[in-house]
């Protein structure tokens, strides 16, 4: 299941276990934790086709004195006239307020619901199972839902008009994960079953960056003040035959790219030929971020780094601006390979949380060392969300 927490800031969706009325149980600490009034409503979607909203602030009952149980305050399931028929793979709040929420399901539909009347306001039919849906948390000029399905194109659905506005082509297989940029309302990142992560500027055609796992840099780049040491490091990391496409690439101090660069922009050699706009990556480009499907994407709140999980059981941390793999190695883990995963990152981004089979592992973002493992679920964990708004005690991670 998928779930989303609502607060003054746009919150990310999350998935819940298959139970209809899941327990919102946190780790049984002797103190009661209070969530501030914002960050209060949790939205979740389940594999039985239902979506539910929970109030995290007021528990409906307490068990054994300190385990809080929360019953859903709103539930739409298969019995509902317009409910989903199959697994709800993603449930997200409308970024502006809790008046609307969006659900995406394996029944090929993406539905927009009015929370108060619990009715479907509009729906969008996709050509295949919908794996992911996302809305930009910082959008002020558009109300687009980016959806990824088993089909190779990312579709943008507009709530304002009820129609599809764009399709983004380039992936060679279905799209399992989507993430909007936290620094620009026009930039979308998609992770496909073909192992590629593509960056799209929705105002233009084509994608402008494809992450390549073989293109690496040693470590995260220091802030601009230290740019002299930074360039030296980048030179070390630059492979002699790398092809770079990004217009955002920093030009200037570092070594000129190999002549392979110009060749990648206009591929006239060979029987396959495709003209590309300068700065755009063609769909012929087969660079991969993972050896397998990209199952999860999460960007840091400062918009500088991107975390990706793949079905090759690797987690990679990317420097968004340079498009390089920082080579941080997150210790061995086995990840679920066929389902989209929801990852979480703390705000300063010091820790990342990954659902890993039946536990959640927290890793130190920059060194990749395991910080802690949270065990308590009886079955596979699909998603996790980090709630940083809890100021009373330590921030809680709502697990599912």
């Amino acid at each position, binding site marked *: 299941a998928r779930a989303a927490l609502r607060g003054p800031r746009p919150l990310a969706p999350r998935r819940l276990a298959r139970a209809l009325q899941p327990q919102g149980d946190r780790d049984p600490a002797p103190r009661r934790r209070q969530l501030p009034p914002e960050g209060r409503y949790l939205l979740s979607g389940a594999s039985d086709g239902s979506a539910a909203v929970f109030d995290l602030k007021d528990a409906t009952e307490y068990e054994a004195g300190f385990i809080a149980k929360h019953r859903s305050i709103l539930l739409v399931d298969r019995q509902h006239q317009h409910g989903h028929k199959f697994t709800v793979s993603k449930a997200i709040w409308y970024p502006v307020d809790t008046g609307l929420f969006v659900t995406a399901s394996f029944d090929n539909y993406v539905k927009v619901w009015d929370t108060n009347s619990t009715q479907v306001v509009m729906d969008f039919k996709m050509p295949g199972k919908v794996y992911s849906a996302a809305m930009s948390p910082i959008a002020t000029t558009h109300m687009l839902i980016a959806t990824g399905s088993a089909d190779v194109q990312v579709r943008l659905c507009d709530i304002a008009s009820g129609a599809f506005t764009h399709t983004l082509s380039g992936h060679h297989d279905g799209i399992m994960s989507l993430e909007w940029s936290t620094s620009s309302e026009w930039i979308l990142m998609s992770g496909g079953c073909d192992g590629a992560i593509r960056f799209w500027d929705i105002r233009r055609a084509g994608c402008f960056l494809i992450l390549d796992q073989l293109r690496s840099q*040693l470590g995260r780049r220091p802030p601009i003040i230290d740019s002299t040491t930074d360039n030296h490091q980048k030179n070390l*990391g630059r492979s*002699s035959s790398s092809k770079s496409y990004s217009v955002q690439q920093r030009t200037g101090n570092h070594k000129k790219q190999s002549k392979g660069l110009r060749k990648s922009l206009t*591929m006239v*050699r060979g029987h396959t030929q495709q003209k590309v706009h300068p700065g755009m990556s063609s769909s012929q480009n087969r660079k991969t971020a993972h050896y397998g499907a990209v199952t999860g994407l999460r960007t840091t709140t400062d918009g500088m780094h991107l975390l990706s999980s793949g079905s*090759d*059981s690797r987690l990679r941390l990317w420097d968004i601006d340079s498009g390089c793999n920082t*080579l941080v*190695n997150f*210790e061995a883990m086995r990840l679920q390979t066929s389902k989209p995963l929801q990852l979480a990152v703390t705000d300063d981004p010091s820790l990342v949380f990954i659902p890993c089979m039946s536990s959640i592992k927290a890793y130190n973002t920059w060194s990749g060392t395991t910080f802690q493992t949270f065990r308590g679920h009886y079955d596979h964990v699909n998603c996790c969300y980090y709630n940083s708004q809890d100021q009373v005690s330590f921030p809680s991670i709502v697990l599912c």
Partner: protein
Amino acid sequence: NLDGHTSLEDNLIFSDTLIALQLMRTQFPKLEKVVTQPFILQSQLYSSVKDRTQVDRDLESLKKDRVLRVFKLNTGQDDHAIMFMDDYLKQMESAVRRSKGKNQDCSEVFEWFEKYVLPSKLDVSIDHLELCSLLSHGGDARDKHITLLMNAGLLTRQLIDPNMYWFSIPSIGPILKGLTQGRKEVLSLLNRRKYKEMLLSSLEKTRLRLSPLDVRFHLRDLIGSGQIKTVQTATGLLARVSTD
């Protein structure tokens, strides 16, 4: 401390990637039926050096310094083998000799490969266009040249993408088969035990039936890939099957 036989327990952790690689290279099992130069699996490296991120970064610099090459194997989704450059060139030499022995046609492609492709392409894979353009530096490169490289075992292709060639270690096929089977055998040995664990020292003495590689090779690999965990006990290191 490089005496004849050293226990795995005493030689599990190293502080430096290059030292770990060199030591594991000397400990590469002596194979009876196949003659091959030593190689080290990336997972084995992870089991021997604490900081994995540092390992990845060191590997990256060693690759760029052309001290070693990394190869993607087809035994698992993220399996990689590391070979020192000299060993790889020796392995290539024997493969080339075998190929020339069968057929002298187009064998100039091997010189082109060694002279133009290897020094400039340090990654694990190369696409068709780039391969052709690099080989063309030596002469008129045709499809039959590429076929010869593939037949000699220097390049392979995967079904997913016909345009992409992967560098491979020639004549390594039977060893890889042993790798997969040996992994299963070691894991089943542990899984059959009541608590799915065994002392490392007794595990090391086992002889495997299905793999030409020794137990220590497989143990390093399985520990590094996270399938086996080691636990320190009063009687020594214990190997246990990993649950999560």
